[in-house]
């Protein structure tokens, strides 16, 4: 046993190294900001141009989902605006081919938790409270843990219901 100690140690550390690489790979696939079919820039639209969040996410205040806007809404401006940019040309390609854009979802709650955007907007929770400062996110990434403890802390501090049934229907 003593003779093989260095070998055992080497195997142990290589095992740990492989595991950390596996974790990194897993994080790159799921946790990092996913690459989108079009590199839509929140800093340009919400920052420089000063568009309100509801300009594109129109249903956020009146339905459980914030929803991604239809291509037709993008085309209202991009029929004429910035048509020389490659990313806008990609958008126009989708429009001309009448194809939907398969945006990658960034914020995903587990199936057993129900979240309603409308209720939170009505309660005066700012979008940035959960989604961070989109004006500074070139590529959107998850900036909150979305863990239950976090949700419950906020509910408690605002005297919102903390009944299990509120979120787990």
């Amino acid at each position: 046993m003593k003779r093989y100690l260095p070998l055992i140690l080497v195997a142990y550390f290589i095992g740990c190294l492989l595991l950390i690489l596996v974790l990194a790979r897993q994080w790159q696939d799921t946790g990092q900001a996913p690459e989108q079919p079009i590199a839509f820039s929140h800093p340009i639209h919400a920052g420089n141009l000063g568009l309100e969040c509801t300009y594109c996410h129109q249903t956020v205040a009146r339905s459980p989902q914030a929803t991604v806007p239809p291509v037709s809404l993008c085309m209202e401006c991009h029929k004429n605006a910035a048509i020389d940019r490659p990313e806008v040309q990609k958008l126009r390609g989708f429009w001309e081919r009448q194809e939907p854009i398969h945006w990658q979802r960034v914020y995903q709650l587990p199936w057993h938790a129900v979240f309603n955007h409308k209720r939170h907007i009505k309660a005066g929770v700012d979008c940035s409270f959960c989604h961070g400062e989109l004006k500074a996110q070139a590529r959107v990434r998850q900036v909150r843990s979305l863990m239950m403890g976090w949700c419950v802390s906020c509910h408690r501090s605002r005297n919102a219901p903390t009944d299990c049934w509120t979120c787990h229907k």
Partner: protein
Amino acid sequence: MQMLNELLLPPTDQQFGMLAYLILFMLLFALPYLGLVLVSTLASTGLRMIKSPLDRYFLEPWTGGGPMITFGVIPFFCLMFLFQLYFYGSSLPVFEYFLRIMFPLFGGFLLVYLYGKSRAMILVGLGFVLLLAAAFFTISTIDLMLFPEIWAFVETPLPAVFSIQVIIHFLIFLALSILFTGAWLYFLYFRWPEHRRPTQTFDYDQMRKITGGMMLGGVLFLPVLMLWDFYTLPVYTLTSPAFALGAVTIVLLGVLALAIVGILRATVARFAVTVMVLATIVFGLVLVNHQLLYARANQEHLTLLADQVKKEKENWTAEREAKRDANVVADEKLGEKIYNERCTACHLFEQRVVGPPYNEVLPKYVDNVAALEAFIRNPVKVNPDYPAMPNQGLNVREVKAVSAYLLSTYAAKE
């Protein structure tokens, strides 16, 4: 402490970046030193209980007044102010958190220092417990940087204390401290210049085995703890450099482990410098790695905060200027002087020169001197028949003076 909060000016976004480096710099002194004292206190007590004469050599190198103040006391005061700035805009009672750290910390240091003089077991036992509590509170306070999302809700550090991350980070700190202390003790007693070495009665073999065992324990536990840490960290804190640095740390730990096996197997002392250097680098790398996680976790928060601070500063400057302007008294003599030097080149009362005659433009300002002052400070084109008036670059006092002079002269002519 409200008073302390009021002493701090809101930092700019560049300063926030700088703060992270300063915090890291202070932690690089404070945490390894705290670890050294903590582990050597425990080891010394254990050796004392088994009646080994080695016990005092474990505490001797770092429990003098000088190192304690330099590495134990001063960094924590600096960290208190740095954290106060870092958490600016949140409702976190940072000062209270640091009181919670500093009482047990300084108490523990004092008791361990007294133990070095009197060798009373009660002192060292109590001192160890206090230092352990201080270390735990330190880790839990630093780890608040990992969870900007809970800052709005945390009143005491307790919620952070119960998080799995704090427990893992505390265990990582302990494992690092054991490795670091073992490596430095081994280095001090086997490679330090001859004159600092202990006397002939010193049991070198026992020292080598104890420090080697400590190092091996630390080295074996660290990778598992690091993996557990990466597995449980919130997704918004992770970055590719953090993973890369984690991998480099594990490779270094592997090299260290082989060197330690070499130390334990040999009958003579060797690899002393190697293990000391590697253990120090590993401690530093782990701290840098955590700093990367904190920076990523706070990226969003700092952007929001920089905006808020910018707005606050603008309001603050506007308020200050309004206050200052309100106190300026119009000095008509100065106004006359400026009028003759600057204004008459383009304006006269009765006739058009470059600009319109005063008799035409002043009536609208008779009851509104503030509008006239605003126009002189920031002239804009009003009448398309005339060219725009260039900004004269007058200060508030001069603008007030010349406005008052113009209006009183106009009133006298009327």
